[in-house]
């Protein structure tokens, strides 16, 4: 009897969660095939003839509003920029962050905690506080409007996140396993690469996904530190709004397209998130 109540509760929990979190997503997807006229109705339209106009417009970059004006969007370029910035930032973060996280977890060196904490404090430096001085500084050293500079600044968001998440996972791995492996004649690097990283994979995977999302969604750094040529999708999608309409269909379409790369990454990473369970036995 109690099992029954439990599963009924569980069922409702699933329904509630799906309704709250996924209904808006479904509606965004729905709107991306609608015209503004169909979206902005007093009584919502449920049945309509889906249009691919929004997607075609985004792809071609030129949306003719008949007898009125032509609207230019640079969404393709925005997407490329987002990809460069996010992939670049996450790569740099992984390269620097994973070894650093390992060092902080494994070796208690003098001042280690202070350095780790300082890195964390970067994460909570208010963007507004640092953005204007950075703008000044980057203009002076000729780094205004460059991918390099933005990837550098993005480390403020991604590096501490990865460092502190992955560190926890490394700390959970018993040093004994590593010692045993090294006693077999393997080098320090081999044990790091073959033992520690695979064991920390779920953490690294989760942290990379989060870093990618945060880099992808960043708004203010690119806006202030770059020209319109290197703006990511987040800034680009706002430019759909014109003095003569808020094209919700187009915005919904932009959201759908801009979410796809992250979604694909999440699906790919899912595999590693699960892997942790089977390896859990040798930890602790």
């Amino acid at each position: 009897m109690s099992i029954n109540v439990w599963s009924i509760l569980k069922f409702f929990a699933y329904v509630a969660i799906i309704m709250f979190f996924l209904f808006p997503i479904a509606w965004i997807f729905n709107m991306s095939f609608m015209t503004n006229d169909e979206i902005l109705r007093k009584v919502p339209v449920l049945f309509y003839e889906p249009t691919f106009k929004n997607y075609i417009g985004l792809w071609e970059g030129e949306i003719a509003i008949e007898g009125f004006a032509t609207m230019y969007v640079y969404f393709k370029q925005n997407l490329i920029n987002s990809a460069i910035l996010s992939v670049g930032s996450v790569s740099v973060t992984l390269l620097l962050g994973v070894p650093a996280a390992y060092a902080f977890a494994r070796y208690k060196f003098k001042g280690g905690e202070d350095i780790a904490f300082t890195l964390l404090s970067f994460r909570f430096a208010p963007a507004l506080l640092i953005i204007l001085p950075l703008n000044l500084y980057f203009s002076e050293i000729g780094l205004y409007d460059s991918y390099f500079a933005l990837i550098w600044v993005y480390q403020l968001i991604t590096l501490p996140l990865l460092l502190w998440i992955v560190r926890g996972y490394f700390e959970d791995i018993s040093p004994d396993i590593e010692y045993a492996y090294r006693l077999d004649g393997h080098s320090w690097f081999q044990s790091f690469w073959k033992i520690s990283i695979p064991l920390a994979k779920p953490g690294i995977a989760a942290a990379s996904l989060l870093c990618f999302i945060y880099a992808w969604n960043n708004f203010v750094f690119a806006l202030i530190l770059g020209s319109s040529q290197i703006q990511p999708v987040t800034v680009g999608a706002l430019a759909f709004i014109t003095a003569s309409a808020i094209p919700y269909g187009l915005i919904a379409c932009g959201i759908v397209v801009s979410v796809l790369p992250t979604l694909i990454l999440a699906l790919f990473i899912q595999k590693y998130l699960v892997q942790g369970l089977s390896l859990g036995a040798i930890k602790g």
Partner: protein
Amino acid sequence: MEYDKSFFNLYFFTIIIELLLGLGIALLLAKRNWLNNILGVLLVLPLMIAPALASLIWRLLINPNFGIVNYLLSFIGIDDFTWASHPDTVLFTLIMVDVWVFTPFIMILLLAGLRSLPRQPFEAAELDGVPEYYKFFRITLPMLFPFILTASLFRLLESIQQFDIIYALSQGGPGESSMVFQVSAYLQTFQYTNIGKAAAMMVVLWAICYFLCHVFVQQWHKLKIKTKGELLQ
């Protein structure tokens, strides 16, 4: 200060709700099957949409003239809910959208944590016939705690600096009812061009974050040592 009240309401409610909800979802999805695997990815979708754009869409969803949410609510007798346009409901609205966007963040971290927990304690408990709730409170939760702390630390830091959602939905209004530090600093910087004053406010904000963070990290270290010790026994 005049924004004290909304400040605390906003941050603490938001984080507590997100933690409980994120933990609940992570527990619900912990077992591997096709539904949980798919949901584990799909539920991250809200986080994948930039908060500024997510807020723009939410404004449409809850729009009294065209919004689907408002339309659906009218069927269960909720007409004319004021959402972000009345002091009584604005905090609820901001919290709701924040929860929608950021609960997945907690969920990802806790789900990954949950799935990486060692099996032995659970297997031992299984053999001893320990009841479920005992297993949850005495094994799962303590072992998950470092993950919970990491997740709440990052959420807290972000939440204190959360700007996009509040600015897009209420700009601190109506009146002063949702005015928070960072919105006011934004206005000082970019609208009033009082850059010095804004910088001073931001330094205060940074100091608050620094302090909170320090407390958190200390707790985190203590917990790590404690859970390790318990597991070794």
